[in-house]
């Protein structure tokens, strides 16, 4: 950042002009070199994943680095799709879509109430939300199973979905956003006789697209990538989503031997939906992720 700044600033820094230029060029080249090497390190593993998923097992073992398979084969994918994989994919889609829709609706409702509606106990609810977020997820692993079991929701879609249906962080994101919207618009609507839900639904919510998209992205990513909850919430193979299925595939539960191409193919396919979402909303994600700090 320093080198580029100097071009924009008056040359207050007492450095001879020519050597400054040379230094700047060297610095910029170094930056680029560092970036390219690092980007390579971050991207290469994914390319290796895809490349090896199209190899036969001996090929993958003989040439793990080759990005173009000597003899490309889709055998791994065929094997995967003959197995339970399509079912896992279906479950992941069902769970992710429901959870995302649920989180958007419930988080927005609660966020709106906390931001705009005055009711007794609002502060308590807010404090509880913060407290609840301090509980580490992994502490809940065993107890969540116990509660699901007591409620008779163990081994059902309901058990897989409902506990994920709201998240405290999402509520707070929406609350913060709603607070940033001027109240004037609602005041006008109220004078026209619009009820609370109507004001929320048809006036405030449409103005909150950026925040809602943030919640969609975060929920989609969180529920698509969730693992531990799925492990404890069900055992029926019919209810296995992708993460759990591929994790058990990887730890060798389903097959003897290594069979890397099949596992890599599974990993590649489960990455696709998140990758698509990521590239579609790339700009938004970058803002969503860092933006909250900006405030």
């Amino acid at each position, binding site marked *: *950042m320093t080198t*580029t*700044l100097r071009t924009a*600033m008056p040359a207050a820094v007492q450095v001879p002009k020519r050597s400054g230029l040379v230094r700047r060029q060297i610095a*910029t080249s170094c930056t680029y070199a560092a*970036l390219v090497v*690092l*980007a390579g390190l*971050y991207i290469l*593993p994914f390319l290796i994943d895809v490349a090896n998923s199209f190899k036969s097992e001996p090929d993958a073992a003989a040439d*793990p*680095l080759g990005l173009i398979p000597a003899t490309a084969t889709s055998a791994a994918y065929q094997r995967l799709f003959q197995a339970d994989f399509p079912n896992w994919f279906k479950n992941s889609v069902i769970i992710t879509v429901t959870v995302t829709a649920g989180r958007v609706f*419930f988080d927005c*409702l*609660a966020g709106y*109430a906390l931001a*705009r*509606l*005055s*009711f007794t106990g609002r502060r308590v609810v807010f404090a509880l939300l*913060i407290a*609840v*977020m301090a*509980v580490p*997820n*992994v502490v809940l*692993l*065993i*107890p969540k199973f*116990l*509660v699901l079991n007591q409620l008779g929701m163990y081994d059902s879609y309901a058990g897989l979905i409902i*506990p994920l*249906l709201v998240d405290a*962080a*999402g509520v*707070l*994101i929406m609350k*913060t956003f709603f607070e940033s919207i001027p*109240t004037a618009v609602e005041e006008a609507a109220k004078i026209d006789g619009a009820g609370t*839900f109507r004001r929320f639904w048809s006036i405030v919510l449409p103005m909150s697209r950026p925040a809602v998209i943030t919640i969609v992205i975060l929920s989609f990513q969180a529920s*698509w*990538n969730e*693992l531990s909850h799925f*492990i404890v919430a069900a055992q029926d193979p019919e209810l296995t989503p992708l993460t759990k299925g591929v*994790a058990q595939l*990887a730890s060798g539960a389903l097959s003897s031997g290594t069979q*890397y191409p099949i596992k*890599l193919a599974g*990993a*590649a396919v*489960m990455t696709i939906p*998140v990758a698509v979402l*990521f590239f579609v909303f790339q700009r938004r*994600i*970058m803002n969503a*992720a*860092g933006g*909250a*700090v*900006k405030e």
Partner: protein
Amino acid sequence: MATMLSHARRHRPFGRDAMAGWLFVLPVIIVLGLFLVLPVVMAAWVSVSDWTGRGSPFSSTVNFVGIDNYRDLLGEPGLAQRDFGTSIRNNVYYVLLVVPTQTAVALFLAVLVNKRIKSRGFFRTAFYFPSVTSSVAITVLFLFLFSASGAVNRMLSFIGLRGPNWFADPRGIIHIGLGWLGVDQPPAALTDGSLLGVNWWEWASGPSVAMCVFIVLAVFTTSGTFMLLFLSALQNIQAEIEEAAIVDGTTGWQRFRLITLPMLRPTIATVITLGLVGTWQVFDQIYTGTRGGPAKTTLTPAYQSYSASFLNQNWGQGAAIAFVLFAIIVVLTAVQRSLLRERDNDGKPGRVLSTLSFRRNAGGDS
């Protein structure tokens, strides 16, 4: 703004808001109550009971055993205690290496992509992408990359090195280092004493080679998220840095050290907190990858809690491990917060929020 609002409210007849407010937050309260608060209460009971996983934990056949489960872990020499000691040791090394590394790497990346250079959008995307992919997929990928005949060992062979069989190598890296110095038998002083059933020589082993792969994996998957946090912090203080650049003839490194770094202090504190919370919960990678092996060197308290309950019917002990882990996280976070206190805490909700929404992506969790 909040005070303005409440002031305005006092003068308006918002009576029905009260009911609407409760209705609006009801779903959230029900779900969080059922699946966050109630579970904690139930687990607290199980952790002091002798429930073996049959029938309801509240049935009359289940007995209160006091602190027995905790004592087995912390006080009573035996297999449970030694496993717990081992898992704590493994996780301590994991935290000690992952948290500083991911913070430093994330800051470094943020500084690089904050420069006014071409295609920085591409670079930001590249660094962030591993953070959005599932930890299961990344672990599967790493199992392949670091297998005996995998890509990493192939690369090492180009420069004449013979890489270890990463995921199957239980040797601690400090032990390996000492071995190079000729120390391969533990000094008697270190094998005599022990903590949590693990003797000092074992405590001093360092992370195993297998654990080192998980450490690299954690840095790979979390540095992108933290890079974004640093990036937006950097953009906020851009003006001050530019000012400093004009004022005197300091070098770039001096400006970074004397101006940027102190101003980033709150963000660094946030990143470290998130890192601590996340790294103490590492589960997904262990479940997918090694299940605690080789030689228990990747066993973590989170995985041990799961396996004690779900694989060995030792539910009381599993719940007790979870609570001890909870306590560790709370204490460490509190200590770290007081050490790196945010002096300029302006009470903006933004920081809290980012902390919360990215908690799940930090370190091991999720």
